[in-house]
């Protein structure tokens, strides 16, 4: 199993490289991550420095001193933008880890154990799917205090439902495979089967989903900030937008204060979706050509690349 997983990774990388979209997405994300990690090296100003300005320093146009102008507190938008990547990416990453962990666990357990467990878990998921998120968010924010941790928790705890559904259906299809049935017949324990057989086959789907959930979490953070439910002391792209929006950036003609953080969000979210989409295609190459495609004549339906690295033919549900 160990050796196959190494070759499977290599095979996966080879397939992955052939997808330009996925590569573009990966590069976009890497740029954002590098900017976030090296923020102190890149940003010319310290965004947390004490505010000592005059009125003329507010919303100044882009200039050599301030490449992207200044914001409503006279701070350098470019520096805020670079530092903001840290918070936005942190929120995206950790919120999605929470979502994926809950959603993945519920999905696998429900799918594998079936019966009453599945019923209860999936009913619970359905209810969560039906309840509008906003009242829950309002209440959680009022009960806790707006802070980085709490925002991550709110977004993470409300974002797992679609993952649970996806993972469950994938688990169901994996469970029906011969080698899983065989393992069960031999008397392997359920946790063992989940660890050794189910998880490796569900994992690719989870990875794809994680990337998409990250992008959703980043979008959600900006929405929360826009609705005034975020932490105003946090320097995230969402908060930059919130300040620009409530402090009249647009009517002051300071488009840079509004466009820059928005661009950051679009950049990362697009990077994630491109990567996610590319990953999905790399994992499920069947969805790349069909009987009406012009290329059909030349490219015969390829032997599934996924089959090579996963050891079994697999199919990803399309939704």
């Amino acid at each position: 199993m160990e050796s196959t997983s190494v070759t499977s990774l290599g095979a996966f990388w080879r397939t992955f490289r052939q997808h330009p979209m996925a590569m573009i997405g990966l590069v976009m994300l890497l740029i954002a991550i590098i900017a976030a990690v090296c923020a102190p090296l890149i940003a010319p100003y310290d965004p947390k420095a004490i505010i000592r300005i005059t009125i003329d320093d507010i919303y100044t146009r882009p200039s050599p001193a301030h490449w992207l102008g200044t914001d409503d507190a006279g701070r350098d938008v470019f520096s805020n933008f670079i530092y903001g990547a840290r918070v936005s990416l942190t929120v995206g990453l950790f919120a999605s880890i929470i979502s994926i962990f809950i959603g993945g666990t519920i999905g696998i357990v429900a799918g594998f154990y079936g019966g009453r467990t599945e019923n209860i878990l999936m009913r619970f998921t359905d209810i969560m799917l039906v309840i509008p998120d906003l009242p829950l968010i309002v209440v959680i924010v009022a009960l806790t205090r707006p802070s980085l941790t709490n925002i991550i928790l709110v977004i993470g705890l409300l974002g797992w439902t679609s993952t649970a559904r996806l993972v469950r259906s994938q688990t169901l299809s994996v469970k029906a495979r011969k080698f899983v049935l065989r393992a069960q017949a031999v008397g392997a324990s359920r946790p063992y089967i989940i660890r050794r057989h189910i998880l490796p086959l569900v994992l690719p789907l989870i990875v794809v989903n994680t990337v998409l959930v990250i992008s959703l979490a980043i979008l959600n953070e900006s929405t929360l900030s826009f609705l005034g439910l975020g932490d105003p002391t946090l320097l995230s792209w969402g908060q930059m937008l919130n300040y620009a929006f409530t402090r009249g950036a647009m009517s002051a003609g300071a488009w840079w204060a509004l466009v820059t953080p928005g661009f950051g969000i679009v950049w990362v979210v697009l990077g994630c979706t491109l990567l996610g989409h590319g990953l999905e295609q790399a994992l499920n190459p069947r969805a790349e050509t069909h009987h009406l495609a012009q290329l059909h004549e030349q490219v015969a339906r390829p032997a599934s690349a996924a089959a090579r690295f996963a050891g079994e033919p697999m199919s990803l549900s399309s939704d």
Partner: protein
Amino acid sequence: MKKRTWLLIAALLAALLLAACSASTPQPATTGSAEEATASTADTGSATARIGWAGSPDTLNPGAAVLSEAYTIFDLVYDSMYQLQLDGTYTLELAESADVSEDGKVWTFTLRDGFVFSDGEPLTASDVVFSYNFYKAQTDFPFLNVYTEYFESVEAPDDKTVVLTLSQAIPNLDSQLIFLFILPEHIWADQTENAAEFENLAMVGSGPFKLADYAQNQFVSLEANKDHPLYPPKVDGVVFQTFDNQDALVQALRTGQVDMITEMPKPAVATLRNEANIAVVSGPPGSPSVADIIFNLTNDGTCPEDGVCSGHPALQDRTVRQALAHATDKQQIIDVVLLGFGTPGLTLIPDSLGVWYNDTIQDFEYDLDLANQMLDDAGYADTDGDGVREMPGGGDPLTLRVNWPSDSTWSSRAAEIMSGTWAQAGVQTQLQALDADALTSVCCPTFDYDVILWGWGSDPDPAFLLSVMTTDQIPTGTSESGYSNPEFDQLYKEQAVAMDPDERKAIIWQMQEIAHEDVPYIIPFYDQNVQAYRTDRFQGWITDADKIELSDMTSLTIIEPVQ
């Protein structure tokens, strides 16, 4: 898919496309093009002033309303005994004369002729009597019954005369009567049960304007009452349109979709000033409001029954509070938050309260050296060298929790600036925005905080804002600082019965001096109203009064279209 569905969808698409095309047809560059392009009826729109604002009335029922936007509309649609002028004085409106008895308890008003309700019924003394008794009887009206507190009886000996008897002589009856709008008895007499839930959609009033059309959170459309005996408007009507988004408000003025805006984000001022045909005006607002930085002053002696009273012990020391006042750079806050459109604040009584505002007080100037010196002298030394002072004798560090409502972006900017300068005086802050509910529950009467950035809105008489600092209000939650000073409490009682305006003013000025010296609050600024109007649409806006309020009745009744 069925054919019919597709047809339907196609029709919808076509309609939208059509709208898009009609939208993109070039329009005359003159003003008000949006309206004239769609409505070609003869000139109905041209003499109607269109006002953009960011709020909207919460209700058309004068008793139940809370928001100042509602009061703006009531002021236009109803009449009351007195009218508050923009210079802060009160003039008689409904009555042509008011006679006071020797002891100051019996007021006799003689009504002017010619006030008629919009449904044709004349306004008589019995409507006044009904209205005053009605407001007094409705205990669940949030505000208006406080103004009837001293009413003992109201009578109408004849159609023109109202006799108001007070339980005690009060110095500010005029200010108590301005919000007691006269309602038509023939309509409201049936609404005394459950009056707060009466929607009052017909809004029958006698004021200079009458309600023409209304859609909640969208617009209030008023028509001129050209027969008003005192303030017949020169325009045909006024429309207040609500914009949920302040940038849109500014843009609407620039594109000529509205003629005046009552507020705007301050950073927009510079851009609007460069615009042709737009004038920007600023000054103290018509309805007073004040921003404050609150210290938790409660201690074992003043803590209310259910209170937590966890305020930092250092805040009990007036020297610390004064030092913090010296360490607060008010001008920097005004520059960043208000772009200069504000004046440094002194006490809870703002400059928009006119004569009641004591402008002679010498403020604690921004001086970090002095602040440090004061704290050093008082024994708050930084013994462990971490940059944060400790209580005398090496106790707890001077670390203060600072809270503010999370939806207020001015507060978070002010908190950032404040925490920066306080740190230089060796006082550390923990900044934490709180949801409005959470803030109310830590504030008062719980007193589970150190410092809060918040604010008040109030009416033109200083009594209510002064009451916020009295000991009596600590358990009720109205006092947010827990400030308790017997001398101040005594003066508060004295001003309530000081009949001579000058004497009352002297007491109130003295109260401000005490409050300023004791620093229960640091008042960062008094905000100014910044409003703008199109000079090519209407002229005559009152821009030279002590206060700036273009949506005030006095302005709206004298503006006229530009020829």
